[in-house]
């Protein structure tokens, strides 16, 4: 190691600085010592009183969670007061023994015990953990009289959440549950620990999750004297909590109930939107579940039953499941043709029953074709050939360019958690979606499938309903939303959640009218005629069938196919035709043809909404009879008579309706 002889002056300067630093250090440590002296000697009495004699605890006061009401003020989620039996683990020597003894006073069942042990593991030691809720007066009296025997055991008044509508609208309202480790991390991320001190529940799903910050409220503080055992003796001062804000929805719970009932046992989804505002009137996903199960910690059996069910009741199909739109896509395709100048409303093509691309033949449903087909007829009879040609002429890029702004393939931004974006296919999408180069290639044949709503297309019922609503508004697009007002709990001020349109797509009114006229034709003379027979209002609609399963490469097993692999049934509709008040999309999973199972549901919902008639009322009898009629003799024979151009039939399977790249490749 080489050593420099530093000039003495520099070394002296350094040492001077060390001495100065030393003095500074002594000064600061002296300052600390003074502070300690001040706290520990001069103010000792004061702090000792605060700590020893009167241990003052700051108790958080949990605010009342906001209530959720539908558009008519019907309560969907509320609080109710209940007494709970709670144990603070670190004040109890032997938790098991205490539980055994408590069980001699109040009923503690095996599942209460299991739930308690689970909560115990998740909680911090100094927080009390509930053993039983909903104690009866008699039970409370018994515990309180014996309380001296149980240090660390308390009866507390708590507010629990109640969902009076039960399973109705459960996917929208969602539920709250006990705060778990993941929630704690989320709260910490938001730097919100203080406000959740004392809170035991947090929104887990639906509006309860999405509007958690509005609903929760602001935690209050109570300064209390605590005795040596940690029990509150006397309240000293309090800052009152601020109740959470209430939510007023656009939802009509009675309409929702009618819609859910209309599904019966079938799985599916329905979204009904008020076109003029984008407010969601009903949003159904069946099967539903009872949100009350979750509030107090769901039992293992209940959870298993819900989670393992093949029907996936917890899944919100209306916003999360994307299905090929089938022929419900045709009105939008028709509009694309008009707007992009590829078609005029009058212009007719000759449908000879198929469309050739290269050496591949895309079949129509009707053998021999529909003859001369113009735009109106193409929608009314759901003519595939018309749209094969149109898609080919437009090209996939133009289709994607037109459909994107309508909301296809992107999240609508509805105020619910867990929305899926669906798939608006395009060559770019395919390049990003697939890894192997041969899969990334876009084939011309795939465009043809997209034209009739099959192929890679996949949209949520919400996206279809929202796109229809945009059409009805001549391109003015509102964000679909469920909450109309947030009611401020302090000022009572009602904040509107959504008022302005998010964008305006420049559409020519004449073009929109031509398409909508076609949809009115569907319900008066086309595939929707049976379902809307005798309706007291004019309506527009479009049936659709989404293929679930392509037979390609698979053995045809009739038994399995009959159940889960049958086609999904679609129907989109609006009414009244002159001034639309409701736009909806219905999907029935494995429901077969759209006209058969989805359209009657739409009819019941519209009847109720527009005429306030429940199924069973005078006008609805028709609808019911109609449905019964349908279910009895709905068969190929009947379909053919009523609607010769029913949804894409079997001949087209594997060809035009196949979403498979293989089909496209063959088409090349």
């Amino acid at each position, binding site marked *: *190691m080489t050593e420099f002889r530093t000039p003495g002056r520099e070394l002296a300067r350094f040492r001077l600085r060390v001495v100065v630093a030393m003095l500074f250090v*002594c000064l600061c440590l002296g300052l600390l010592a003074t502070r300690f002296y001040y706290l520990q000697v001069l103010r000792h009495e*004061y702090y000792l009183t605060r700590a020893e004699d009167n241990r003052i605890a700051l108790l958080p006061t949990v605010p009342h969670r906001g209530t959720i009401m539908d558009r008519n003020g019907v309560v969907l989620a509320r609080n109710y007061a209940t007494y709970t039996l709670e144990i603070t683990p670190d004040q109890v020597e032997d938790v098991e023994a205490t539980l055994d003894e408590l069980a001699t006073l109040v009923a503690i069942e095996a599942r209460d015990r299991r739930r308690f042990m689970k909560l115990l593991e998740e909680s911090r030691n100094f927080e009390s953990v509930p053993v039983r809720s909903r104690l009866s007066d008699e039970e409370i009296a018994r515990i309180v009289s014996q309380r001296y025997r149980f240090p660390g055991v308390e009866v507390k008044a708590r507010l629990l959440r109640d969902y009076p509508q039960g399973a109705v609208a459960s996917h929208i309202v969602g539920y709250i549950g006990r705060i778990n480790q993941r929630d704690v991390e989320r709260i910490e991320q938001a730097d919100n620990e203080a406000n959740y001190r004392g809170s035991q529940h947090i929104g887990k799903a639906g509006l309860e999750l999405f509007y958690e910050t509005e609903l929760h409220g602001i935690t209050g503080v109570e300064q209390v004297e605590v005795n040596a055992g940690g029990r509150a003796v006397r309240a000293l001062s309090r800052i009152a909590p601020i109740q959470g804000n209430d939510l007023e929805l656009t939802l009509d719970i009675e309409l929702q109930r009618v819609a859910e009932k209309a599904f019966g046992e079938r799985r599916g989804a329905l979204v009904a939107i008020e076109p003029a505002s984008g407010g969601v009137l009903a949003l159904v996903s069946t099967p539903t579940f009872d949100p009350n199960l979750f509030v107090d910690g769901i039992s293992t059996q209940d959870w298993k039953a819900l989670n393992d069910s093949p029907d996936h009741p917890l899944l919100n199909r209306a916003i999360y499941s994307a299905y090929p739109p089938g022929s419900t896509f045709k009105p939008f395709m028709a509009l694309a043709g008009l707007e992009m100048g590829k078609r005029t409303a009058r212009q007719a093509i000759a449908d000879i029953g198929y469309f050739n691309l290269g050496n591949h033949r895309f079949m129509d449903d009707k053998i021999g074709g529909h003859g001369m087909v113009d735009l109106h007829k193409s929608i009314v009879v759901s003519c595939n050939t018309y749209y094969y040609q149109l898609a080919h002429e437009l090209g996939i890029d133009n289709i994607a360019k037109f459909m994107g702004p309508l909301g296809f393939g992107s999240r609508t931004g509805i105020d619910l958690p867990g929305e899926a974006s669906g798939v608006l296919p395009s060559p770019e999408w395919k390049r990003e979606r697939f890894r192997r180069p041969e899969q990334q290639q876009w084939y011309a044949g795939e465009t043809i499938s997209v034209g009739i709503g099959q192929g890679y297309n996949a949209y949520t019922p919400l996206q279809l309903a929202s796109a229809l609503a945009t059409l009805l508004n001549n391109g003015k697009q509102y964000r679909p939303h469920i909450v109309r007002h947030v009611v401020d709990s302090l000022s009572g001020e009602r904040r509107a959640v959504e008022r302005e349109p998010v964008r305006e797509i420049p559409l020519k009114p004449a073009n929109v009218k031509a398409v909508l006229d076609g949809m009115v034709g569907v319900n008066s003379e086309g595939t929707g005629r049976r379902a809307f027979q005798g309706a007291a209002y004019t309506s527009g609609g479009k049936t659709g069938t989404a293929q679930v399963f392509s037979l390609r490469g698979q053995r045809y097993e009739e038994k399995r196919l009959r159940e889960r692999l049958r086609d999904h049934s679609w129907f989109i509709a609006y009414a009244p035709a002159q001034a639309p008040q409701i736009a909806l999309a219905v999907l029935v999973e494995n429901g077969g043809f759209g006209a058969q199972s989805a359209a009657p549901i739409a009819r019941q919902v519209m009847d109720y909404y527009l005429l306030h008639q429940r199924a069973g009322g005078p006008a609805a009898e028709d609808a019911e009879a109609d449905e019964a009629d349908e279910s009895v003799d709905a068969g190929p024979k009947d379909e053919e008579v009523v609607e010769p151009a029913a949804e894409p039939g079997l001949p087209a399977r594997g060809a035009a309706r196949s979403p498979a790249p293989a089909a496209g490749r063959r088409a090349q």
Partner: protein
Amino acid sequence: MSGSRFNPIALLRAFLRPLDPILMLVLGLLLGAAWVLMQSASPERLDSQGAHFAIALGAMWLMAWVSPARLLRFALPLYALGVLLLIGVELFGEVSKGAQRWLDIGVTRIQPSEIMKIAMPLMLAWYFQQREGQTRFVDFVVATLLLLLPVGLIVIQPDLGTSLLVAAAGLYVIYFAGLSWKLIVPLVALLVIGLGSIVTLGDTLCQPDVDWQVLREYQKQRVCTLLDPTRDPLGRGFHIIQSTIAIGSGGMSGKGWMEGTQTHLSFLPERHTDFIFAVLAEEFGLVGAVVLLATYLLLLVRGFFIAAFAPTHASRLLAGSITMIFFTYAFVNMGMVSGILPVVGVPLPFISYGGTALVTLCLGVGMLMSIQRSRLRARSS
């Protein structure tokens, strides 16, 4: 060690050779205190803290073998690595508690700002060593820039506590390198005036709609809570209120080991990490607190002694800066727990629970020992 016979005494001597007895004494006292306090504050963490002790002492021992000259050769690469990792954090870092601090390098997550605590004084000491005897004003400008780059990156993470420590580490080197008093005095004065005005204008500045521009919302909250802990009695203020109660109620001789009501009735938050000093003050009183202050003072005096007699310019700067960093940790932590400084996440050196800080601190002690050894060797040669 030329003897061929196995000699356990000689081996032990060789093993202990780089260790400085006074520093070892201080370390023994501090780690002993840590052990005793941890039994009261959080006994379930004793095992893992024991492991931290072993790792940290091992790191210190290894560091004590590395001569200052060799260490300084790593200054530039370590500094460059630290800056690169900080940029990496900015681009790919993981977010935790609203701040981006961690970088996942596959095997483990690392906190690059921790590297900077060592790399920063090393880098500046190395730089001034190059300019020894010809230090000009421009060198201080360069040094300031070298300081500001990583500090800026840490501030935007945002991690106020660590950025202050890293900035302090660099500023100490600059101070010891001889920055003119004409600059230091106004800077310190400005700082004092700034803090003073914040204290006096606190109420206006802490209105919720006032945006402080430089500091993030949660940092503003911390400062405001210090000025008036009752502002947020459940959140940030809760810590300070409870820790001052713990300290004050300890009195002259404390409530006795394991007898602290604040500690054991769970009023004291973070009692095993940043607020462990309150446990000491509650259970051992003013006597315990002053003994701790004295122990730290002994550590600092020894550090300054090593700095004053270190053989080279760079090792002097390094030793001085390390010593001042120890002081900063201790002062900021005790100041915050006793309510005279804002709550910034700085642990009580050698005592708070946690491995990372302990290893960093012990590496610092190892450097002091190595500098001391280089002096002894220089003198004997």
